[in-house]
Structure formats: structure tokens, C-alpha cells
């Protein structure tokens, strides 16, 4: 008997005679927030900031200038942009060398990059979360992990939802996803929160209103 068969048999024996489980009562709320895009966006802003992401807001035409300024203020000399990032986003960042993420780029090479700029798949207001799913403007998981500075652009209102139950149906389970709520943090030392153990220590989120 294989272990697979053994375990499945044990499960069936253990459950013999157990009553059927009831249907799941999903009496919980699908959102805790008023159905108003402005309120939802403000909540996203507030909750992102509460978890120590740095939040900026702009209109679409102000985005290139804002990104250029953020990279400049950071003193970044290199910026990594996924292949599908709209080129005009970084059009103003003339003093920064753009690096591509090639399949052969090693982790060590990524470690030398100053900043990374990506889009996102969806952002969740109630939890202050941005979700990346490997879309063309987000790239592979590693590029938002190894560099120390991540700027994520969220397009409002179309990419913003209020709650976790509203976010999941928008995601394809077949694609790897990374949910980010504030920068990397640890509370393992006397429960003092310290930003950045292994992920980017600085997370900037740009909310772009159309």
C-alpha cells in the first residue's frame, strides 16, 4: 500500500459515520466601507500610511514628474522597470539609468539596483494592501523583493477595491501573487516594530487618479 492510499484510507475510516457538514453560511460582509470611490481611495491612503508606506497622489499627467522627483530625492542612480511598464511613466527620470530584468539576471545583480517601479493588479483599501500578480507592468516576484526601494503605482479608481472579498475574484489563482501591506517589518525583538528585514525597506505608493 502506498502512503497515499494509507492516508486516504485512514481519513475515510476516521470519518465513517460522521454527519455531513452543513453548507457554509457566508453571513459576513463583503465590504465594511461605503460604496463611494472617493471614500475607498482615502481609506486606502490612510491604511497604507498607517503601515508606514509613503503615499503620494497625483493625476495621470503628473505621474512622470512625480516619479522623477521621487527617484531623485532617493538619490537612485539605477531603476528597474518591468518590460510592460508604460514607458512614459519614467520619461521624466532622465538622470537615472534604466535596468531591464532579464531572465538571466542574478539575484546579486538585482541586489545592486537602487529602485524598482511597478504597477499592480489590485489594491485593497480596508487592509492597506497592494497585490502584484506578475502582470507585464509588475514583472517577476523577485524584482520587487531584492532592491531596497519599491515604488508601486496604483490606478484609481479602477484598480482599487474596498475589501479582501472584493479583491479575490479579480485575481487569477493560476498566477503567482504577492500581497504587500506596508514595507517589510519584524516585531520579533520585544515586539518593537522594525522596518525592513529582508524586503524593500522603503515602499512608496503612488495613487494616480484619472
Amino acid at each position: 500500500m502506498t502512503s497515499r492510499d494509507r492516508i486516504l484510507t485512514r481519513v475515510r475510516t476516521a470519518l465513517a459515520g460522521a454527519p455531513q457538514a452543513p453548507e457554509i453560511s457566508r453571513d459576513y460582509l463583503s465590504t465594511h466601507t461605503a460604496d463611494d470611490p472617493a471614500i475607498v481611495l482615502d481609506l486606502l491612503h490612510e491604511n497604507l500610511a498607517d503601515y508606514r508606506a509613503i503615499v503620494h497622489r497625483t493625476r495621470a499627467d503628473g505621474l512622470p514628474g512625480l516619479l522623477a522627483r521621487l527617484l531623485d530625492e532617493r538619490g537612485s542612480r539605477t531603476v528597474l522597470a518591468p518590460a510592460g511598464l508604460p514607458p512614459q511613466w519614467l520619461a521624466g527620470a532622465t538622470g537615472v539609468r534604466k535596468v531591464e530584468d532579464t531572465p538571466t539576471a542574478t539575484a546579486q545583480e538585482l541586489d545592486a539596483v537602487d529602485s524598482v517601479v511597478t504597477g499592480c493588479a489590485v489594491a485593497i483599501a480596508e487592509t492597506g494592501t497592494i497585490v502584484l500578480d506578475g502582470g507585464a507592468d509588475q514583472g517577476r516576484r523577485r524584482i520587487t523583493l531584492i532592491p531596497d526601494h519599491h515604488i508601486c503605482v496604483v490606478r484609481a479608481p479602477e484598480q482599487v477595491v474596498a475589501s479582501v472579498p472584493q479583491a479575490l475574484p479579480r485575481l487569477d489563482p493560476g498566477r503567482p501573487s504577492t500581497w504587500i501591506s506596508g514595507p517589510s517589518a519584524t516585531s520579533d525583538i520585544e515586539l518593537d516594530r522594525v522596518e525592513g528585514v529582508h524586503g524593500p525597506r522603503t515602499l512608496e505608493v503612488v495613487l494616480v487618479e484619472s
Partner: protein
Amino acid sequence: MSGTFVGMPSFPVAAGVAVTDERLRGNLRRATHTIRDKRAVAVGELADWGALREAGKEIKDRTLRGLDGYLVELEAAVTAAGGVVHWASDADEANRIVVDLVRATGEREVVKVKSMATQEIGLNEALEAAGIAAFETDLAELIVQLGEDRPSHILVPAIHRNREEIREIFVRTMSEWGRPAPEGLTDSPAELAEAARVHLREKFLRAKVGISGANFMVAETGTLVVVESEGNGRMCLTLPETLISVVGIEKVVPSWRDLEVFLQTLPRSSTAERMNPYTSMWTGVTDGDGPEAFHLVLLDNGRTATLGDEVGRQALRCIRCSACLNVCPVYERAGGHAYGSVYPGPIGAILSPQLRGIRSEVDASLPFASSLCGACYEVCPVAIDIPEVLVHLRERVVEQGGKGHRLEKAAMKAAGWVLNHPGALGAGERLASKTRKGHPKKLPGPGGRQWGQSRDLPQLPAEPFRDWWKKNRA
């Protein structure tokens, strides 16, 4: 379970020693009170907490009732997505599978995401015996590993250590494992975290094999979910070429949609956050992004035996949030090590004796490691009636004869220290017994009835513990 704990004394003995350790008690008390207060705020934000808790309970019950079907469905989905599924009846088999998988890569070291399942089976020791170095990468696990210590809390394994102790451990041992601690390291948490970052980064960047557990596995889609804070999880899950995940069979949930419940309840219950900083989800392998090979080891190791116990099986609903530890007056005084198991606190007191059986002294003593105050049930996001299971297991211990009474007396003696220090039972300690539905039932069976006749404990949760205590201690 883990060889780490072989030879541990039973709970009363270990707890009796722990409660005299002032520093340990100070560290623990500060930590558990901080988390529990923050948790109450985070939970209070959601008006539908009760409904989420009920749904979480029902999803897990449904999972357990149809576990065979969900496991087969999960296996098919993971396989279709390019993963390889292995089944392990017990710890030895799981360790053998993992060791063979690592050997097949030709590597001699692995990076690990904090995982209760791999601790439970003693994987690090098995890897070491096979000549493979396993590096823990969660900061708290690193502290435990470098300190040659044992974890004492599910969520914050180094909760019993303060910053001076951590600094001392880093300075003394980091050089033996890789990059030494920086010169002049102080005990500021920021500096200690930075030292860990630098120490571990060189390991992440060269790692070829990663080992993890998972918080959830979705049967419908084959998706695995890991919830974490530091980014060490993301490092281990995405940088290596080979990823091996060892996951208890009870971690499956039926559908993608079910995650909407647990992703709301787990972070708030465990770290008291609206959402933990990082959650990773992956389904099999993805071309050009992340590991090229993915192995899922499905672990039984006593879970099917637990499933067979009508009262006890609810322990398998546990999502390891650790909220029950932080409200437990016994845990707070005794510390995690006293439980002699990787699962400490109230959940440990019911899970370990079921996974391992109640033949050993330590396992037979665990169901007595509780005042039955009911705080654990109150906070549990999947509504596990821990007091009910404790009483049920006590009866089983008594039925097995001999040991029962002796252990009970010893446990009560150790608990006596706690119970004689009413200040130890702080104001935060739940006392919401009126809202509590499932009180421990009457004890079935002759042993149980006898046991119950001469003792008041099963009725305890029916009223606030301290009131009861005032009335009855005289």
C-alpha cells in the same frame, strides 16, 4: 513528533521550574499583553467578526468532513500546474522524502521559512544527520537556532528572549554560521534586525533549495499560501531553483473564495494587523518566475488519528494564529517550553496529545495544563472549544489508568502557583463567559463521571474565573 523535545519533563515539572524564572516571566508577560491588547483593537474594527469566525469554523469543518476528496482534488490541481505531490504517513517518511529531494539537487544547504510542520517532524535534525545544513530565516527562528534554543511561541518563537540576550547570541554565534555580527553591535532592535538582514542575505542570494510550510492550500486551484512579515518567506519561496513545502493535510481549504475569510481573520488574530506585510500565493510552477521545481509533501503524522476523535477533531481547524497563547494565564506564567512540544499554549495542550498519543508522561500531563478559564475559546478565530477538548482528553488520560490521577495532582500543584497569585490573572483575561455557547459537556463514560463528581472544573467557564475563584477557593 520532533526529537527536539525528547526527554522533556511533563508539564507540571517544567512549569514549576519556569514560573520561578523572573526574566522569562517578565519577557513573556510584556509580550503577550501587548499582542492581546492590540488584537482586540484589530478585531474590533470588523463589525462582522462573529460571522467571519462562524464561516471560518464551517469552512474548516467542511474541509475535515470531506478531507479525502479535497486532498485528491488538491493533488490533481498541483500536478496539473507542474508541481509534484508526495504523501507522508509520519515524520520519518516526510523527513526521508525531503532529504532525498534535497540530495537529488546535489545541494548541501537549504534556506527555510518558519514552519510549524517542519519543526513538528524535526526536519532540521534529519537534514543535519544527512549532512545538509538548514538555515532558519525568520528572525525569531534565527535567534532560536543560533541560541541552540527551542521555540516558545507559535508566532514569536523567541518571545522569551529580550534584546540584551539577542545581542549576546548574535555576537557569540553568527560567525559560526556565516557572516559575523558587525563590530560594536548594540541591542537596539533596528541594529539587531540589520545584523540579521546582512547575515541572511548572503544565504538567500546563493540558495538553490528552499523549504517552507503553508498556511493554506486551495483544493480547487492547487494554490499554496504563505503569510509572513519580514520578506524572508518571499526570499525562500521565489529565489531558489527548487521549492519543497511540507504541509499538514488539514491545511487544505476547499475553494479560492474561502481565502477571503481567513485572510481577514488570521492577520488580525495573530499579529493584530489588518493584514500582514507579505502574503505569497503560488500554484505549481510559473515559467521564468520563481522555482523551476515545486514539491508538496502532504503530512499525516497523527492527523488522521485526531480526525477519528469526534470531540478532538476540532483541533484540526486551527490556523495557528496563536491568539489562544496570548490570553492564557497558564501559558503566561509557564512559558512555551513547559509544554514540551512545538505547539505550546492551549492549542498545544490539545493538539500534541492527539498527534502523539497520551502514552508518554508529558503528553498525558498536557490536558491538565489549563485552568479551563475559557479565554482561549473566546479569541479563537475558528471557534475551537479548547476547554471541551481538554476535558475530553483528561477523561481519556484517566481512563487509561494509573497515571491520570497522579498527573492531575501534579498539574494542579504547579498551576497552584498561578492560581495563588490572582494578580497574574490580569484584567485582560477574557471573562466573557456569558457569550460562550459550547461549555464543556458532561463527561461521558464511567471514568469521566467519577472524575467529574469530585471536581468543579468543567463548570468553571460558566462564570468569570476570578469570581468563581473567590467563591470557591475558601
